[in-house]
């Protein structure tokens, strides 16, 4: 089994994430889509790592997972305080930072 299948899967997951970020209006869904993109990248890294016999890629994955965990904490905190202020997490209604 070649590496292509892993890469196809990763690309599909990534595109789902991108579309989720762009198209969905709920902040939590957008946030989850970002996590999806991160994990699709992780998948690519692991695939290459196994294919090339080099552990560097897997090491990087651990980094990404750590950072993603920290980012999830901060992101959720932002969403909670957003909700407290505006009683909504609909991104279409949050646009005061403009010209």
């Amino acid at each position, binding site marked *: 089994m070649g590496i292509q299948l892993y890469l196809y899967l990763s690309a599909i997951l990534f595109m789902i994430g*991108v579309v989720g*970020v*762009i198209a969905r209006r709920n902040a939590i869904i957008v946030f989850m889509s970002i996590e999806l993109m991160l994990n699709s990248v992780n998948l690519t890294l692991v695939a290459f790592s196994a294919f090339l016999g080099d552990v560097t890629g897997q090491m990087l994955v651990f980094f990404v997972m750590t950072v993603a965990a920290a980012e999830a904490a901060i992101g959720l905190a932002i969403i909670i305080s957003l909700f407290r202020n505006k009683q909504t997490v609909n*991104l279409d209604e*949050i*646009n005061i930072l*403009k*010209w």
Partner: protein
Amino acid sequence: MFSFAPTIVLFPLLGFLFLGLFGARLRNEKLIGILGSGTVGLSFLVAVALFIHMLGLEPDQRKGIVELFSWIGTFTGTASSVNVSVAYQVDQLSILMTLVVTGVGFLIHVYSIGYMHGDPGFWRFFTYLNLFIFAMLNLVLADNFLLMFLGWEGVGLCSYLLIGFWYDRKFDVGGYAPGKAWTNDAAKKAFIVNRIGDFGFLLAMFLIVVQFESLSFDAVFGRASVMTPGSDVMIWITLLLFLGATGKSAQIPLFVWLPDAMAGPTPVSALIHAATMVTAGVYMVARCSILFALAPATLQVVAVIGALTAIMAATIGLVQNDIKKVLAYSTVSQLGYMFLAMGVAAFTAGIFHVVTHAFFKALLFLGSGAVIHGMHDEQDIQKMGGLKKYLPVTYKTFLIGAIAIAGIPPFAGFFSKDEILWKAFSSDQGSVLLWAIAAAGAGMTAFYMFRLVILTFEGKERFDHHHAHPHEAPKTMTVPLIVLAFLSVVGGFIGVPESLMGGNALEHWLEPIFAPAMTALRATPHHGGITEYLLMALSVGIAVAGIYGAHTVYMKRQELADAWRSKYRRIYQVLWNKYYVDEAYDALFVRSTVKASETVLWKGLDVSVIDRLVNASAQGVAWLSSKVRLIQSGFAQRYATIFVGGIVLVLFWLMFK
């Protein structure tokens, strides 16, 4: 021994820095005065030591160049590399000028302690004076044109600062529109008129760099001495240099600033506008004698301008009533004689006159300062008279100065002026006409000087006894007067011509400096024999006639003065109004410049073109940004979309380029 030369320049610089930084806090006139004059005195002592050392050397070894540091060094090897160092050159000419500058300068510093007593700007005055001496020494000791130019500009700056020293006072303009102007206006006038001359100097330096690829005197003069005379570039260089000299040394057409410069304190007039700075132009021409020798046409111009200035200023001096104005025009006139000497290639005679003139004109100015001091700031000689009773020392020394400038032997002025007159007659560049003009000017010099002496010191007392209580000046002022009077008597003996059994020590001393120029001119010494004695007797006769005339008109038959004034009203008016030169310049240059600035530059260019351009560009940017900023909508997802779109484009570009 020559390595001590930079200390001459260093002392006044230290004095300037110290007084400038801490002078305001000293609050002790005595200390400031001692510091200010002491630095110049030290420089004088070093110069004397150096001079004595040089006397013991062979003539061809009396020259030393001390290089302190490289000032402008370009990358070596490039085609047009001009390296300029801060280097001082001590030779026969520069040591002579240094002795005059520091010696006379020291006396005037001492005098200033008395003259400026009680002035709130006492420390400032000495700071400026020390800065002036520093700049002047840079000018005379420089070994290249650029360092000389630094000194040249430095003395101009100090002149500006000191003319406007009493910035809260007004002075009498005199002439056609009698009125008062701020001393600051006189300072600005001096600065701006000098700037025209400096422009010439600067252009000459550019030409020298192009022509000789160097700015150091040795290199330029060495390369020049093998050139053929009369080349166009040489004429341009020397003409432009001479333009610089006319500005600094107050010659036609740029002499108008000097009479107004009398608005400054009198020691300034003595030091800067009589003894030292105004002779910088003469010194510069003498220093570049080889360049001028290679441009005979320029020499003619120099001689004619010098002679015309001498006679023109002398005629104006005949009728002026301000004691300092008379001396100012006298200075312009004497500077004319110096340039006449330069123009007829009598470089030694010109420098000789610089030296003697420094003695007697400094003496006369300081004497006039003592009179003004004693009369409580009165300067109009028509309101003086009979002062010899009250100011005996000033009177005697002033009289000595007047005799010296009139040219009565054996006083200093006789030898130097007669030398110039003789050379104007006998030299290859001279002519009978030049001699006649100069001789007529000499007669007028004797006349107006004794008019000044008589109206000030002799005759009836015309001042108001209730307001003026004339008194003799303090010791710090009279002692410099006495020393300068002594020098005015004996100063001429350094250059007694051979025809009068003198050794003409000065000529032999300066011979190596001017030898290249003399070779280039193929000058042969003229020994006129009987003609020389005849002309000498004639010039003494003219001087005596001038003195006798002044004595007759202003002592014995005073009605003559009024009678002539009404009889020759037209001429009197022209002279009183200084040939309307100021008015002509005002109409030609000043007003047209102001008018053009107002209509064309200000309202035409600045308001309607530049301002509009600036406003239009600002409005354009504002309009554009009002449209473009709408991109920033506040929707984070739109930004993300654009971001993704960008990535896609980059990917496409990477894949299909």
